Structure formats: structure tokens, C-alpha cells
């Protein structure tokens, strides 16, 4: 298990959220959408030209930008 940022997690690989390092408002929005400590997340794909990531958390698909995904620290397997 290694700790990486969600933006660095390879597509399709699962990670477990360890910490959300965002300012209060954004952290609350993330939490409401399911980004909570201990939850499993999996980046599905990235849009062209350095566009946003599609991330699956629980059964919900969320799009967020890479720089925002970098605020989420996850445990990656292997």
C-alpha cells in the first residue's frame, strides 16, 4: 500500500481515501458527494487536453479537475 494523490492514481486502479486536504467549502461538497475517509475511489478516464477526471466513488460518477483531485490523498494497492 502506498499513499498517492488521487490525480496520480492510474486509470482503473482502486484507492482508499485517506485524507481530503481542501478548504472547508469544497471539502463539504466533496463529502456530500461521497468523498469520505475510508471510501473506495477509482479514476475511470480523463478528458482530452489535460481535461477533468471521471472518478467513481461508491456507485456515483463524479467529474473533477486534476488539480482538485490532487487534494485527495489515497492509499493505492501494490
Amino acid at each position, binding site marked *: 500500500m502506498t499513499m498517492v494523490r488521487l490525480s496520480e492514481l492510474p486509470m482503473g486502479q482502486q484507492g482508499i481515501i485517506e485524507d481530503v486536504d481542501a478548504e472547508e467549502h469544497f471539502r463539504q461538497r466533496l463529502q456530500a458527494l461521497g468523498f469520505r475517509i475510508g471510501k473506495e475511489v477509482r479514476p475511470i478516464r480523463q478528458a482530452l487536453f489535460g481535461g477533468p477526471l471521471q472518478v467513481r466513488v461508491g456507485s456515483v460518477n*463524479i*467529474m*473533477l479537475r486534476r488539480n482538485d483531485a490532487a487534494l485527495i490523498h489515497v492509499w493505492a494497492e501494490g
Partner: protein
Amino acid sequence: MKRIALLGMPNTGKSTFFNRLTGASARIGNWPGITVDLLGAKILLGADMVEVVDLPGLYDLHGFAEDEQVVRRFLQNNPVDLLCIILNATQIDQQLPLALQLCRLGLPAVAVLNMADEAERLGIRFDTGVLAAGLGCPVCSVSAKYGQGFPETRDTLRRVLGQRPSTDTRALQADFAADEALIAEAEKLLARSVTIPRVLEYDLTERVDRIALHPIFGIPLFFLALFLLFQAVYTLGGPLQDGMAWLLEGFRDRALAPLQALLPGWLYGLLVEGLYDGLGTVASFVPVIVLFFLGMALVEDSGYLSRIAFLMDALMAKLGLDGRGFVMLLMGFGCNVPALMGTRVMRSRGLRLLTMLIVPFSLCSARLQVFVFLITALFSPVHAPLVLFALYVLSFLTAFATALLFKRRLGSNEPLLIELPPYRLPTFKQVALRAWHEVYHFLSRASRFIIAGVVMIWLLTHLPPGAAAAGPDTLAGMFGAWLEPLLRPIGIDERMAVVLLFGFVAKEIVLGAMAVVYGLEGDALAQLMAQQMDWVQAFSFMLFTLLYTPCLSTVATLRSESRSLAFTGFSIVWSLGLAWLLSFIFYQAARLLGF
């Protein structure tokens, strides 16, 4: 009268549930923040009339988004007798904390598991008894889309309303510290009461997304879909429009022409040549508008809009905007006013103002009818759809260029977080209802401005008495002569100048104004336009119409949404200046090249 408040996250089908429960035609959207105005309806529940209010979608009762504050303010200031909590059964794990939060307010509540049919297909099984005990309120399963489970839900709502007396909501004080405990409890309850299959991986949505969000083909596919939509509107709408014009002309010849002998000349002129011809020319475009909104409703209700935000975000970020800004431009294709109001989902003021600055360049349905009319009159059937598509492309390009120019002053790095909901095939009824709602809005807006506008134009083109109709001696002629030096360099003559003047009020009037100014309607007007203008002039006129201020409603909305007179003034001046400049460049360049 007792009051029920509908609450739930965005994309739970809350609006659909509201429509189904009340029978009203509320706007249904897949985009957070569309139902910004509160919708309410009175229904008969058992023997009593009950008021149902549809509150904006929220993720967290303690959240800080504008919609979440609206909900809190509503609950603090309005007595509510029952909370009806709508939950998306397919995403119950994400939604349960909010449900617990709402149940803890101490108001009588009913939880509704919507999309129960979809959840069942995904293999999600509910123990509603355990769920109800955990939440402390009755739980009903429904499919708002297909109407299953509604009689039972109505019964439950009526029963709970009858049980307890109204609660004083001023005592509502939410406990922020308890949030984390609620979440932990939700997870525990979830584990006890719900079984969710672990992998929802290979469902239909993912298969569609593999194509729709394809890294290379995603964007071209979107533009292809857009082109096909407009092509369909144009090819299907054409014959329908001809039919409508034929009906209107028939009515004029059979029923109205005999009146000429009975009415005084000026009254016949005002009523038939002014009002009827003006309204008729606009009315003949209703089929095109209906088709257009059917297409838009299909796209909006399917869940594709947030995919477009995903695809376009990288490009929009370079312009200081985000994917939502592009979606607002698309919404603006219908009408700029709701698109401007939709920017409320943006928290950063700079980002919001920049988006509001570009939305008015979006080619709305009122401008569409002007273009369809002129393009049909002046271009061959082969070229026509391409010219229309070119105008849409120009609408995007001017919006992008504007954003690029002003992003330094207004742009922002607001974090972007959007749910990509599962694709849903909207039911025919849903799309039809939605399209009807939009067309109704179009017509009511149109009739408000058009009747006054058309009468005004008839007066301007016929006063003072004795002057030749629409001649240089009339008031309109004088206006035209006054604007002439400004508009001559872009190929627009005095008569069309008057038309443009009224187009400032609303683009819906433009065709009616042409009909009155030239004293003709339908095919005859189209033929005359083809003689009066060449294609260069017509395109220059369309370019100007596309870019200058859309209408007074848009200006009023800009003012109320930005709460800044300076910003509103700047937006008007910028779009007018850009319209003139681009038309000038196009017209003079085309003439220099010998066209």
C-alpha cells in the same frame, strides 16, 4: 392549509416526482440549479387541499451552495407540516446521510425511494421496514417516471399529515457537529438494511460513456450530434412551416379579406396588414420552435449535458471558464434568460460574470427563426443548413473570443465538481411536456412583445397621416435616415434599420416588423427580401442580429443577476460594438473580393 416540502439531492427525479404528484408542468432538468425559482402547487390529498413546494436540490443541509442556503432559509421562515424526502434508490448509499439529516429536523417526514424500478434491475434490494425504523419515518417506493407506487405514497402522505399537529419551525437549529456521527450511523444502517451488488461496472451507462466520452471521438461526436439536430430541425421544420403559412394565408384570403369592404381603411390596415400579418409571420415558425425544443429536451433529460461539460472543460479552462459555462451556452440556444439564471450555480463572482458576458452571444430560438426565414429566402436548399451551422459556429467563436479577452479581469479557479448521472431515456410524455412548457413560454413572451411591437411599427410606418406607407416621410423613415450613416457601411438599408431597432426589444418581433415595414407576409415577403438584398447583405444583417443585444428580457436579467448597472451597460456596449465591427469587416471584405 398544510404544506409539504419536497427535498432531495439533484438528479433524484424530484421534479419528475413533483410533476407526477401535482399534475403541474414544472421544468424537468438533469442539471443542478435549474429549478432555481421555487415551484409550488395545490393538490387535493384525501379531503383536504395541501400545498406542495418543490425545494432546490441539495447535497447537504449544512452546505454552503446557494441552493442549500435557499432550502435552509425556506425551512426557517415557512411553516412546513411534512418533509417529503426524495431519494434516488439506485444511489441510496450516497443519499442516506442527507435523509438522516433531514429526518433529524424533528418535522413529520416521509422518505420516498424513487427509481425503485431501476434499482430493482440493478439488483439492489431494500428492507424498507429496517430503513423506516432507522430513519424514524415511513418509506415508500415509487417510479416517478412511470407512475408506479403513487397511490400508496399519496395515502402515506395523507396519513402522516393527519397524525401530528403542525410543528413550529422557528425552533429548527441544525447541529453541525453531529454531521460526522450521522455519516457513521448512515453507513451502519446501510450495512444492516440494504444489499448492493459490489460491481455496477458493466452497465449500459458505462458502455455508452466509452463512446460518448471517448478521448478522441468524444468531441467530434458531440458536434456531429449537434449538426444532425439542427439539420433535422431544418429539414423537418421546412415543410411544416410551409403548411402553417399556407393555413394562415388561406384564413387571411377567405375570412379577413372580405372585411376590407366593411372596415375603414386605416383600421383594416392596422388589424390585418399590421397585426395579423405580423403575428402570422411569427406564428408560421412555431413548428420549427417546437421541433427545436423537442430536441433540446431530449438532450437535457438524457444526462448528456454533464458529459458535454466533461468533454469541453479543458478548452473552457483555457478561456477562464469551466465546463458548466459551455453548457450554459447550449442552454442559451433555447433562450438566454434561463441560461443567465443558471449561472447561479457558480460561486465565484468573476467566473459568473464572465459566463454571463458570453451567454448573450448564444444563438437563441428567437434569433433562429429570423435566420431560418432569411436563409430560406436567400440561399439554395443545399447551402441553407451550412449557413445556419456557420452562424452557430460564429456564435461559439465570438463567445470564446470574448471570454479570452476578459478572462484576466474575471476568470477564476473555482473547483469544479459535477456528478455524471446515469443515462436515462426520457419518456415521451416527459419530453413532450417539457417542449410544450418551453413553447408556451416562447409564445407568451412573443405575444407580449409582438402585439405591442407590431402595432407600434405599423404606426411608425404610417404616421404622420398622408405619408406613403413606410416611405421616407414617415416616422420610421426618419429613424431609418438617422441611423443610415451608421448602418450603410455594413450593408443595411433604412428599412432594415427600423427592423433592427425593434429587434432590440425582442428578436421575436423582427419578422413581424419586416412584414409590417414591407407590407407583405409569408412567401411574398421572402421573395421581396431576395430581391432587396443579396446574400452578402443578408449575411451581414444576420451577423449583426446574432451579436447585438438579444432582447430587453436578457438585459433585465443581466441587470438583476449581476446586480451591477456598470456590468450590464458594458455587456450591451461590447455586444453592439462587436456586432458592428464584425459585420463591417465581413461586408467590406466580401465587397472588396467582388461578391
